[in-house]
């Protein structure tokens, strides 16, 4: 029974991660978006994107505090959902908002700092998504860890983009920034000092579940 639940957990999480997209599609088709539907979709996809980045970065500290190593096995999925929502964010801008007005888009990306920063953050995610497969993790070895440290740059770019895009009230981006600062800070605390997970990591043999995808990630996160 426990095994069945464990096997269901990941697919269930996958469906849960799709729910915001489902809600958006439903709202779009039934007239429940805000008065500026395109702006509403832009905001929602962007907010979910940064939320998923935050969730991805929360896994390592969370795992160390709880000692629940299985958390590591969903990190790739959350990271890819972050990439998915942020790609949608860009597509809403490209297709619905600007309708392939390349001239304006090029101008936006080069001349409007918040768009420059946001676009850069998204572009930095592309190699991460491409190399997220098991094969690439193996092939790149230690360099994979280095490469994927780019997620921190993307997170920072996301916060800056979010903050600069606000007309005046920066309460929401500030909240995300605060959470990210805590998550970054947690990485600086020496792992052996207090983390239960860290202690176990050192002695426990890797579980099969972790061994599949997560082992290199664990080390990588430790260095971040």
């Amino acid at each position, binding site marked *: 029974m426990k095994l069945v639940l464990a096997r269901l957990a990941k697919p269930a999480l996958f469906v849960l991660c799709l729910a915001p997209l489902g809600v958006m599609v439903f709202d*779009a088709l*039934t*007239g429940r978006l805000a*008065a500026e*539907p395109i702006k509403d979709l832009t905001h929602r996809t962007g907010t979910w994107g940064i939320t998923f980045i935050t969730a991805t970065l929360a896994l390592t500290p969370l795992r160390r505090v709880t000692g629940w190593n299985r958390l590591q096995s969903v990190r790739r999925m959350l990271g890819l959902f972050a990439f998915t929502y942020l790609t949608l964010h860009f597509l809403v801008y490209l*297709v619905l908002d600007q309708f392939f007005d390349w001239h304006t888009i090029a101008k936006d990306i080069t001349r*409007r700092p918040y768009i420059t920063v946001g676009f850069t953050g998204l572009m930095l995610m592309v190699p991460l998504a491409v190399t997220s497969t098991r094969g690439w993790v193996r092939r790149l070895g230690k360099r994979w860890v280095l490469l994927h440290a780019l997620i921190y740059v993307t997170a920072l770019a996301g916060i800056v983009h979010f903050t600069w895009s606000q007309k005046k009230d920066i309460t929401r981006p500030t909240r995300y920034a605060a959470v990210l600062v805590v998550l970054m800070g947690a990485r600086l605390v020496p792992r052996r000092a207090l983390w239960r997970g860290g202690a176990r990591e050192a002695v426990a043999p890797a579980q099969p579940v972790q061994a599949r995808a997560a082992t290199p990630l664990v080390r990588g996160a430790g260095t971040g």
Partner: protein
Amino acid sequence: MLIGRAADIPSSEITPERLYLGRRAFLAAAGMAAAAFALPGAARGLVTAASGRQASRSARDPAGHAATDDKLTPYEQVTTYNNYYEFGTGKDEPALHARAFRPRPWTVEVGGEVAHPARYDLDDILAHVTVQERVYRLRCVEAWSMVIPWMGFPLRQLIDRVQPTSQARFVEFTTLYAPDRMPGERSGVLAWPYVEGLRMDEATHPLTLLVTGLYGRALPNQNGAPLRLVVPWKYGFKGIKAIVRIRFVRTQPQNTWAISAPDEYGFYANVNPAVDHPRWSQARERRIGEFFRRPTLPFNGYADQVAQLYARMDLRRDF
């Protein structure tokens, strides 16, 4: 209060309340129908369904200069999509948080360079003016726009009554400061109370309106009840809401958004597609209810009436 409406508007042309209030059900149905098509098509159906009826009335006011052939923005969107930071920074917050606000009794203090400084009861002000309906485009500095049938009277009528002195060169307006009644004023997002200003010739221009209602009804709280300013050729933030003080002054008054970010918002704030906001283009706008952006017109399409006010000015500098 006296409500005068031009006699040539047949009442049959005014949307019955139950129709425009029943819009959501209609929208839902339209959205479902649209869902039958491909997604981009559906999105398009969705937004065009929302755009309401055609306002083909050409002379809504005696002067006939304020009418527009644009489609009216539905009542629901006019009253649920608001920038009114005194009730929160979210567009939906004013409608939620202004519900309990009581706009009466209400007085307006008129002072400064004026022959008859006094605290006027709003009902007294309204007893001396003729409220009329004016359909104006509203262009927000955030690059969205609406078309709204306001009820109001030219500011000039009030100015004529209170008689500013020859020293008066500008008019300064102030919003109610009451953090207990306006929860947004408890935050530090802007410097409260909200203030705005106009040059005297702008204030006395026949298009400049003090508004007390919309869609033929009393002004909803979230739209600035009981008294707000509407200057259709300027960005929406010039339209100060819940006005409690009007002062005639010698020097250019400050205005809240220009205090908040002087490089992004100016005193004049004339709608100008040629001068971008530092962070976004002002060349085009999203009309609420339309899918594609449409070009923004100089002075929001009122250039014929107002451009001469700025004939010798550099509008890039005085944005």
